[in-house]
């Protein structure tokens, strides 16, 4: 039996504040935690024990880094076997990974590398999502990544590509609104137009994060800064249309004290609650209209 998904604002768990969260520092201030299984699998000592303590306090959603769904090497069976054990133990309602490749020819590059926006690539990825889902015996969601170049001549727009994958694999979308913003700025498109072109009914979770400008023409998704207002607005736009969802604040670089992150969670929650209220009004109007 899979867990009932949480909603509200959660925090991506990181080593920098793992002990504090295990000790109760975030009790009552976050709705759930999101964990990267790779940080806990094959690991002993204090870290997995702290995660067990945290899992007694909060719902856990798993979000992986190394499935390499867009990769050309076969899916790593040993990795998937370990992942299956981990997700079962956590009781996560679904497991997500990225629309990217992470290595080739047996060499892991440990990053989120872009994939070609073609139907061939979409079919390849959709098949791998289904295989992975069967292997780990959990529903799957995929996350849109920040990409800094087209990996070949695009035969589809990103939204067409994404939609084809979601349809073919029948999986959920982990919508990263910061990645939408970063891509829109780097490639010169309207983020709201992008959001209108994707199947919002597939969104089962959201990510929100900060980014940094590396030069005048390039934003990089570093997760190393506070969330910008424009990204808050994208989040609100989505929640107003989808209703309550789990939203994760991610921070991986320049990590501030936990208290600062928890204040940021509270700020996101205010935007989120207002958007949920507007979604409720919309839903009511729709009901009256029918």
């Amino acid at each position: 039996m899979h867990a009932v998904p949480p909603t509200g604002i959660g925090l991506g768990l990181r080593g920098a504040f793992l002990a504090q969260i295990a000790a109760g520092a975030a009790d009552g201030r976050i709705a759930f935690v999101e964990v990267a299984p790779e940080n806990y699998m094959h690991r002993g000592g204090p870290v997995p024990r702290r995660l067990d303590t945290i899992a007694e306090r909060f719902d856990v959603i798993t979000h992986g880094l190394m499935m390499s769904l867009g990769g050309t090497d076969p899916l790593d069976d040993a990795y998937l076997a370990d992942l299956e054990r981990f997700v079962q133990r956590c009781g996560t309602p679904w497991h997500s990974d990225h629309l990217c490749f992470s290595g080739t020819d047996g060499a892991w590059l440990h990053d989120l590398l872009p994939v070609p926006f073609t139907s061939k690539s979409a079919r390849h990825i959709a098949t791998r999502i289904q295989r992975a889902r069967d292997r780990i015996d959990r529903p799957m969601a995929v996350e849109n990544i920040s990409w800094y170049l087209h990996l070949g001549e695009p035969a589809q727009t990103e939204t067409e590509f994404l939609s084809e994958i979601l349809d073919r694999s029948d999986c959920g979308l982990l919508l990263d609104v910061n990645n939408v913003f970063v891509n829109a700025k780097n490639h010169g498109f309207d983020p709201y137009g992008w959001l209108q072109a994707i199947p919002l009914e597939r969104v089962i979770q959201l990510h929100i994060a900060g980014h940094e400008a590396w030069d005048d023409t390039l934003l990089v998704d570093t997760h190393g800064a506070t969330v910008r207002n424009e990204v808050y607005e994208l989040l609100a736009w989505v929640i107003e249309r989808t209703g309550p969802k789990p939203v994760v604040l991610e921070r991986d670089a320049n990590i501030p004290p936990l208290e600062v992150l928890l204040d940021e969670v509270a700020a996101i929650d205010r935007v989120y609650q207002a958007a949920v209220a507007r979604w409720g009004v919309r839903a009511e109007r729709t009901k009256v209209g029918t």
Partner: protein
Amino acid sequence: MTAPTWPCIEALSIAIRQQSADSSLRANPAGFLQGLGVSSADADAMLKHGAERILLYRRLVHNRLRRATREFIPRTVARLGKARFRMDFARFVEDHAIATPYLRVVPETFVAWVVEPWRNDPAVPAYLIDLAHHELLSETVKHDWRGGEPPTGLPLALEYPLRFDGAARLLHYAYPVHRLPLDIDDRTEPVADPIALLVYRDRTDDVRYLELDPFAAATVQALMVEHLPVAQGLRRACESLDTPLDDERLATAAQLLADLADRGVMLGANPV
């Protein structure tokens, strides 16, 4: 040679891994990509923002892997120098396919790979290999998935092997690098003085180091590393030191094993 099925993916991977890719891409970006089987239309798309965007991925990957490694061996990298570390790391990324999906295993892979080049390079201080292993071990022992096993509950018996904590390791250093100051800016150079060290995780998850004299090291080697039954292991230890197994040695061994049991390293007899 057959054409690659996913030429753009393979080309980006090569641009990230190959040491010469940086200069090749800057000199002739389209030629570089087309030489790897990328069509001219695909190459144009990849180069829409210039070669810099491809090199950005190279930078992101190398930075992430180097940062993860530096976090595990900070004093080694500080003593080696950033420029040399970057150079060695770039060679490592090209030469050695990182075969693990776990980022935290990359530092261990790098150190295993770099031992040979460092050993053969007089510009690298000889003690640095020991220091890299030592720093690495602090992390790997702390987070080893083994360790913390319960005692067997069985008393020591001469005819049986012993069980030891799964995270414990016996190390042999040519230099006593474990005595170097922890200050990252310290540049004290250790004097060669071979030493054996037992590294283990205590009950509060702290990593501890125990210097072993030659007899203790030989005993731990025989009993913990080679899993020999106690009597055979003690004979082996004495043979290796060319010394008789007399009452004094037996008493010393008993004291050592009692100490290791107190530390939670020796867990009792292991008849299976």
